[in-house]
């Protein structure tokens, strides 16, 4: 009974470690999946900030990126497999007696490959559509349900700023972005059509570039920077009027937050493991005192100090390891409950189980050592006489 209560400290500690790290890893994996949904090996070039009359416009405000810049990247930067010129707007769209406020993305035909965003239904617009600025578009799942309900939107006419667009396809659902934006609430059309018929203007908000080989990303990033500086006539020493971000950098920023969370949760759980360890030390000290006579007998019949030390260490480690195993089971159970009922994503890795188990055994050794050494140092005569 007493051993069970002692092991309970370790059970709770290890269980907490497993569950907490599971939650943290789950959150991290979710964020990583969302980052991956941006596309693979992607470099994002944002139109930069300019200062006019002392007012800085922020990214995308300056309109420094031209269609020709994208063409130049397509032509001159090695390793580029796809480029999508991007313009973005929000506007009211309507069909029949339904209307909806949504985001308009003007893109090139490469966009669906770059974002790794296949169509659920229909076909994407073609490079020909882009060249001719045809009035075609592809819509996201949310937009489709909001306007057409259960009807198929393929071939239907969608009026955007009173311009009729033919819907050629519906995108597969992608869910929320890391920022919490519904990525499926979207209309994607050729950027030429968007610039000419919906948004107006001649500059791009950003350019999405996909690189074939991940090893070439940083080289391509440098080449894009120098190419654009040259094209924009920026003298050395002056700031860029654009910003180049790789997907890697964005992912790092996003996962840093969840990593902090994992560490924090792990630390809290670690403290409870420490408390469990102190419990073990306590019970072992009591045990050594209670069994002083037994230790004396063992010494009298020839046990060396090391034999006694080993015996008590093994007992402490057994106690903490059994607690650790039960704790691992409890932690897995708790994580399963959390993901079932609270819909928190949890991810329990083999390595976190192994670390938790080794750690609980280490707690046993660490907190069992002092009582065990105390037992081993007993004088056999005193121990035999102990009442």
């Amino acid at each position, binding site marked *: 009974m007493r051993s069970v209560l002692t092991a309970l400290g370790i059970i709770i500690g290890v269980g907490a470690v497993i569950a907490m790290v599971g939650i943290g890893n789950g959150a991290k994996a979710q964020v990583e999946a969302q980052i991956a949904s941006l596309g693979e090996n992607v470099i994002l070039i944002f139109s930069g900030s300019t200062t006019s009359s002392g007012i800085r416009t922020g990214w995308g405000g300056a309109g420094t990126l031209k269609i020709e810049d994208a063409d130049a990247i397509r032509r001159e930067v090695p390793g580029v497999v796809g480029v999508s010129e991007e313009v973005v707007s929000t506007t009211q769209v309507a069909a029949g007696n339904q209307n909806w406020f949504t985001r308009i993305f003007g893109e090139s035909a490469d966009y669906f490959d770059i974002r790794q965003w296949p169509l659920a239904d229909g076909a994407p617009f073609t490079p020909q559509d882009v060249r001719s600025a045809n009035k075609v578009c592809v819509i996201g799942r949310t937009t489709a349900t909001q306007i057409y309900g259960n009807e198929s939107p393929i071939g239907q006419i969608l009026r955007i700023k009173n311009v009729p667009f033919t819907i050629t396809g519906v995108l597969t659902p992608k869910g929320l972005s890391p920022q919490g934006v519904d990525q499926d609430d979207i209309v994607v059309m050729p950027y030429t059509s968007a610039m000419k018929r919906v948004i107006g203007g001649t500059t791009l908000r950003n350019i999405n570039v996909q690189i074939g080989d991940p090893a070439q990303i940083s080289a391509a990033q440098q080449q894009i920077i120098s190419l654009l500086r040259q094209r924009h006539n920026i003298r050395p020493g002056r700031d860029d009027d654009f910003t180049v971000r790789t997907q890697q950098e964005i992912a790092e920023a996003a996962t840093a937050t969840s990593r902090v969370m994992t560490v924090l949760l792990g630390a809290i759980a670690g403290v409870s493991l420490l408390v469990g360890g102190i419990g073990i030390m306590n019970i072992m000290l009591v045990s050594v005192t209670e069994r002083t006579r037994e230790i004396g*007998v*063992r010494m009298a*019949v020839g046990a060396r100090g090391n034999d006694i030390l080993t015996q008590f260490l093994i007992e402490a480690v057994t106690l903490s390891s059994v607690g650790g195993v039960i704790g691992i089971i409890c932690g897995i159970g708790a994580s399963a409950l959390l993901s079932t009922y609270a819909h928190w994503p949890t991810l329990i890795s083999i390595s976190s189980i192994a670390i938790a188990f080794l750690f609980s055994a280490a707690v046993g050794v660490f907190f069992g050592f002092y009582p065990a050494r105390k037992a081993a140092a007993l004088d*056999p005569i005193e121990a*035999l006489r102990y009442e």
Partner: protein
Amino acid sequence: MKRFLLAQSWSITSLKRPVNERSHMNNGTLVRLIDVHKTYRTGEMEVPAVRGVSLEIKRGEFVALMGASGSGKSTLMNILGCLDRPTSGSYFLDNADVSGLDRDQLADIRNRKIGFVFQNFNLLPRTSARENAELPLVYSMQRLSHAQLRQKANRVLASVGLAGREDHPPSQLSGGQQQRVAIARALINEPEMLLADEPTGNLDSRTSVEIMAIFQQLNERGITIIMVTHEQDIAAYAKRNVIMRDGVILQDRAVSLQTEATTQLQQSSALTI
């Protein structure tokens, strides 16, 4: 100086003591203490417990170490049992000087050469008689298989009349049976000598005689026994009585009329019938 001479003179008498007939069969000196002192230090005070004891015990002897409490007999017993080291003087056990050995070496000597029997039995609770008896083998240098341990423990338990009780924990055994388990534990490593500290102190008189019968049988078989007791009639089962007072040996004499425990048991059972 006078005390020293006194101690010397006793050692001479003990050396001169005529050898008991039975111990001829396994001759040779097993224990030799030369001017052993033991002083305990409590704070500033030095308390002498043993003040110059010289003693020689041959193989096959059955010695009762007697004396009132505080006479130093327990301290001497601890030294003989290699549980404690003398402050000065030498202790030769089986012709090897053990007075300078460290803790681990002493543990090894205890394991191989000495079997202990205590007043309060000192068996491990919640542990079967067999496992209690096996205990010294666990710490032995020779590694025995589980089956060998079991076999050896069963044999030694049978030799003290506990066949069939191997699986009983101490709580299910009578005092006499518990002491037999303790004797089995002491014997399992085939030690040079058996050290018994008041082995009958917690037993009634009939059980005491039974235990003494076992001791005498073991002694017949050539095992050296040193037994601490303060009871005159228990000491009479031994062949030699060493009486201590104030840390020195007061008297060392052969028992002229050894009580035969077996005959006594036969007589008493004949009487009850």
